[in-house]
């Protein structure tokens, strides 16, 4: 536990040592504000809620989360510091977990910093704060699953650009797998249960379920499972890769 916390803190502060953290925060917050008030028709809908914010979050995450996750292992491998890290008295699980938690915490800060939106809608109207809370829970869970996925892919390469591009593509697939755009590729040749399985992996569908205000258990379990499975695979990749 102690080791996990120390690694998490080191990784967390490492974000703020590079411009990446500030670029991320500015883009995320500016994007969130813009969609909530302008693109999302906030004023003409005459309804004070964060519906448009939560429908836009998945698209923001699609590019921003791989940017946060890409450095986790790729940078470590490129600079060789992985040799230092993995010869310190920590387990691979602690290293993987610490890096993931740091990235999640960092994303959490960005999400928390959207609180002025929440204050605004409460000031302008009388939104259902339960639904908003559910939306935030869904946002964090989806962020966690996307980060765990990005972390896995980051461990496969020493090149951050590759980690980013592949991370975005994979996030896109998982996000969209419930939509016809992706499913049509499989329709016609894959058996129906495969199609059902693919569409059941959709982050977007599960996120929408949660953010409609239903803290739907299967959706929560889905994201938790996704995170745990990705972290587990991440550990295997790190061990396998360093075995040479």
């Amino acid at each position, binding site marked *: 536990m*102690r080791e996990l916390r120390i690694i998490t803190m080191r990784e967390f502060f490492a974000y703020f040592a590079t411009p990446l953290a500030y670029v991320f925060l500015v883009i995320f917050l500016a994007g969130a504000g813009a969609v909530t008030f302008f693109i999302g028709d906030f004023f003409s809908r005459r309804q004070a809620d964060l519906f448009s914010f939560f429908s836009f979050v998945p698209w923001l995450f699609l590019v921003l989360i791989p940017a946060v996750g890409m450095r986790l292992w790729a940078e470590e491998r490129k600079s060789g*510091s992985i040799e230092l890290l993995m010869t*310190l*008295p920590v387990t691979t699980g602690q290293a993987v977990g610490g890096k993931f938690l740091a990235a999640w915490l960092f994303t959490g800060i960005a999400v928390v910093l959207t609180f002025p939106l929440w204050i605004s809608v409460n000031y302008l109207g009388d939104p259902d704060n339960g639904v908003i809370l559910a939306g935030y829970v869904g946002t964090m869970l989806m962020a966690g699953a996307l980060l765990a996925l990005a972390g896995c892919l980051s461990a496969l390469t020493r090149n951050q650009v590759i980690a980013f591009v592949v991370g975005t593509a994979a996030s896109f697939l998982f996000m969209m797998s419930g939509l016809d755009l992706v499913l049509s590729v499989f329709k016609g040749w894959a058996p129906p249960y495969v199609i059902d399985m693919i569409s059941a992996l959709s982050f977007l569908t599960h996120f929408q379920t949660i953010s409609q205000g239903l803290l739907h258990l299967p959706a929560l379990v889905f994201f938790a499972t996704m995170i745990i499975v990705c972290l587990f695979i991440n550990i295997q990749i790190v061990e396998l890769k360093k*075995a040479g």
Partner: protein
Amino acid sequence: MTNLIEVDSVTKRFGAIIAVDDVSFTVRRGEVLGFLGPNGAGKSTTMRVITGYLPPTIGTARVCGQDIQTHPVEAKRKIGFLPEGAPLYGDMSVQGFLEFIARIRNLSGKHKKSRMDDVIERMGLAEVLFQRVETLSKGYKRRVGMAQAILHDPDVLILDEPTDGLDPNQKHHVRELIRDMGSDKAIIISTHILEEVDAVCTRALIIDRGTVVLDGTPGDLHARSRHHNAVVLRMKGDEANRAAKLLRAIPDVGSVEKLDAADGVSLLVVPREGKFVAEAVGAAVRENNIQVVEMHTEAGKLDEVFRQLTVGEEAA
């Protein structure tokens, strides 16, 4: 238990490449083992196996009795490791980085402070303490790497080319440091600087293409040299031919070679194997009244032994 490091028939393959081929050795407390070998011999790979970074393909390594594969965390606690090229976290300050290492090594309170102060002083890091690691010069990075390795005062130190990139003062300083620490630790250093073996090591291990070709004291290494116990005489040029002839007549002398030096000529008197000719040479010089400017006995040339052991087979 005096064997702090035990390498037990370790083989490491990378696909078709056999980087380390059935290597076994032990290092006791109080020993400083010099790890020598040409580029690609498998030195770094062996060190990576001992420190638990790479799993061996066959065999295992134990550190302070803890098997690096079954008890990796316990073993790693006992080790201080300077990886090849001293990779560090570039985005941290020197202070922040050492703090991180101290915390993860479970140092705290007064003890942590005194250990931090000690390594900062020893490695001369006071003036760069708040600089980001990535902006440091190569030598300073190496020093930070060294500081990180000795911070928790480990029983076992594994240092991959610790003096590479250091200025002459720092080289000297680090060698002294290693010698100092050597008395109560087990230390392995790899190096391409053969004088370092004489300067700091109590034992030398030469490895070539993954296998150990020599394991002995620096003295053993010298003794393998053709030049071991050879006598060098420096004199004026016109004396050389007469002297060479007289010296060849001494019974135990194998050969006398003429080496041109800047000021005059040097004669290298090589004894027959296992013989000692210094006294006889001295007597001959006195009796025949040869004008000698300087005379000394060679301990043996390490680079020559190194070449013999590592390229010998290739050339043959």
